[in-house]
């Protein structure tokens, strides 16, 4: 069953007097429960496609439907609500809030819900436990290693029980051992029913995913 439908999506940017076509005529369907890799060289448009599917950047033309919702027909505030409900992001540089502890960073998506503090805390500790960082929940990001920060970012992405996780080069700055642990974690989450879309240019990561999509020069090059 298709969870995500990308139809005729184009994205262009104005760079000076020139218009750069970042994505051309993208059509794509992603099923619920898939673990998908978006692959391609630097500048191919994979991160742009990720930000469009993640509800962060509207396409120049075309539509995005997630769970039968026409995402870019929503106004900006409803779009924020949509991201909050459906989407979790794991950024390349982890993007943790530096002045919040690991626990507080994980609780961040819950701060705008009506859940009481105790429940928020329990939910955050549960996911920190899941990523193996419960014992370091009171540490600030700068007191954690890169791999640990990445796992905090994953905990933050899943704490609100979204339908989809978007991960942009999550293993890009990790050593191979930590990268393997991270991919194992993704695989576990995927087996729990989460749909995961991961941008990567490391072909070794393909062993962990259900499907891979290649983008070259803004065009889907291959849909195996």
């Amino acid at each position, binding site marked *: 069953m298709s969870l995500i439908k990308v139809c005729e999506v184009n994205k262009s940017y104005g760079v000076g007097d020139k218009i750069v076509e970042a994505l051309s005529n993208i059509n794509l369907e992603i099923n619920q429960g898939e673990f998908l890799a978006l692959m391609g060289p630097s500048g191919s448009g994979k*991160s742009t496609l*990720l*930000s469009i599917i*993640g509800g*962060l*950047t509207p396409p120049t033309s075309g539509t995005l439907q997630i769970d039968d919702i026409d995402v870019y027909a929503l106004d*900006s*505030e409803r779009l*924020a*609500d*949509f*991201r*909050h*409900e459906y*989407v*979790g*992001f794991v*950024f*390349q*540089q982890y*993007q943790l*809030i*530096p*002045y*919040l502890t690991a626990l*507080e960073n994980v*609780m*961040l*998506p*819950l*701060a*705008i819900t009506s859940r009481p*503090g105790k429940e*928020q805390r329990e939910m955050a500790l549960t996911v920190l436990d899941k990523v193996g960082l419960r014992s370091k929940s009171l540490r600030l990001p700068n007191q954690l290693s890169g791999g640990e920060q990445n796992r905090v970012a994953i905990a*933050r992405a899943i704490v*609100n029980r979204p339908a989809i996780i978007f991960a*942009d*080069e999550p293993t890009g700055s990790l050593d191979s051992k930590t990268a393997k642990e991270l991919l194992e974690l993704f695989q576990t989450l995927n087996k729990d029913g989460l749909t995961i879309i991961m941008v990567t240019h490391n072909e070794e990561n393909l062993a962990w995913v259900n499907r891979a999509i290649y983008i070259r020069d803004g065009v889907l090059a291959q849909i195996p």
Partner: protein
Amino acid sequence: MTLTDIAIQNLRRRKGKTLFLLLTFILVVAISVTLNSLAKNMQADLQKSLTQYGANVVITPKSEQFTLSYGGLSVPGVNYEVKHLSAEALTQLKSYPDLMLNSIAPKIIGSASSADNRYLIIGVDFPSEVKMKPWWHIEGRFPLEQEVLIGYGLAKQENLVIGDTLELNRRIYPIVGIMQSTGGSEDNGVFTDFSTARWITGIDSWSMIELNTAQPANTAALLSKVLPDAKVSEISQLVQGTQENIDRFTSFSLLSSLILGLIAILIIFVTTTGNINDRITEIGIFRAIGFRRQHIFAIFIREILLISLAGGIIGYLLGILTSALIAPMVLQKSMSFAFHPFIALTAIGASVIIGIVSILFPAWLAINIDPVEALSSI
């Protein structure tokens, strides 16, 4: 975790910038409160003097005055052609119904000396005087003929008690009463009845007549006909000069507060706009994980509310402390730590308003940040 928690944690993390903003609020509020407290205290002091001064019209003998200048040096004013208020003046005043007198208190004022000191002698009619000045409290009793009552300051200065005697112009007078401190000129006076005062000073006419009339504004015009040799002063005229000075100081205080407020807005605006640039990534994260614009705006408002509220309260306390400390230098009198609810609420309220006004534009910039541009990795 709430938006307030996020705001508090951010303020804790950015200690330097938080402290700078807090100090800005504290200084602006403290200076404004100091100036306005001093002005308010001056107003209250004047009002108190007016209330305590039972007479609202004072009649004194007319005199001419000029100032000598010799070789560039000014010699203090010289009075000449001093007229007198005759004994009949009192009869004339009492027989003039248009004056609408509530009470009348004539005085003979002169001086007398002993071997060591000179004294201010005030001859009064005690029943009339007490009617006009109900705040007089006497320890002992009012003097009869050839007896005196002394002010609290004089008693303390010369260590005199009831039963002691006072030498005045080579005669000894028993002290039968001591007036409790009034904070006024009475504290150093020697009070007696008219006949004794005439005996001591040799003055036979009235030195001053205090009136309490229902129509002080019309009294001056009426009395110029009744007593052509008298100078009539309404208390409102006497305090007018002081009032004008106080009004000027009050206006200066308000204007200074306004300018300080504008400077504060500018400083906070520049600082917070700079902070927004440092926090673009953070704002991008908030937006990416589903924070609405109003949530981000609420975080900024909470941050500035916390700082401005703390700054307002500390600034107010510092302001009243400073005004109490510098009052002896500025007003030549001490000032207590008076809590003025209006100044407190205005100061703290103004602090909060300054904060919110300053943050509006930076917060507007923040909520309109594109999350993708903010997160360079996406």
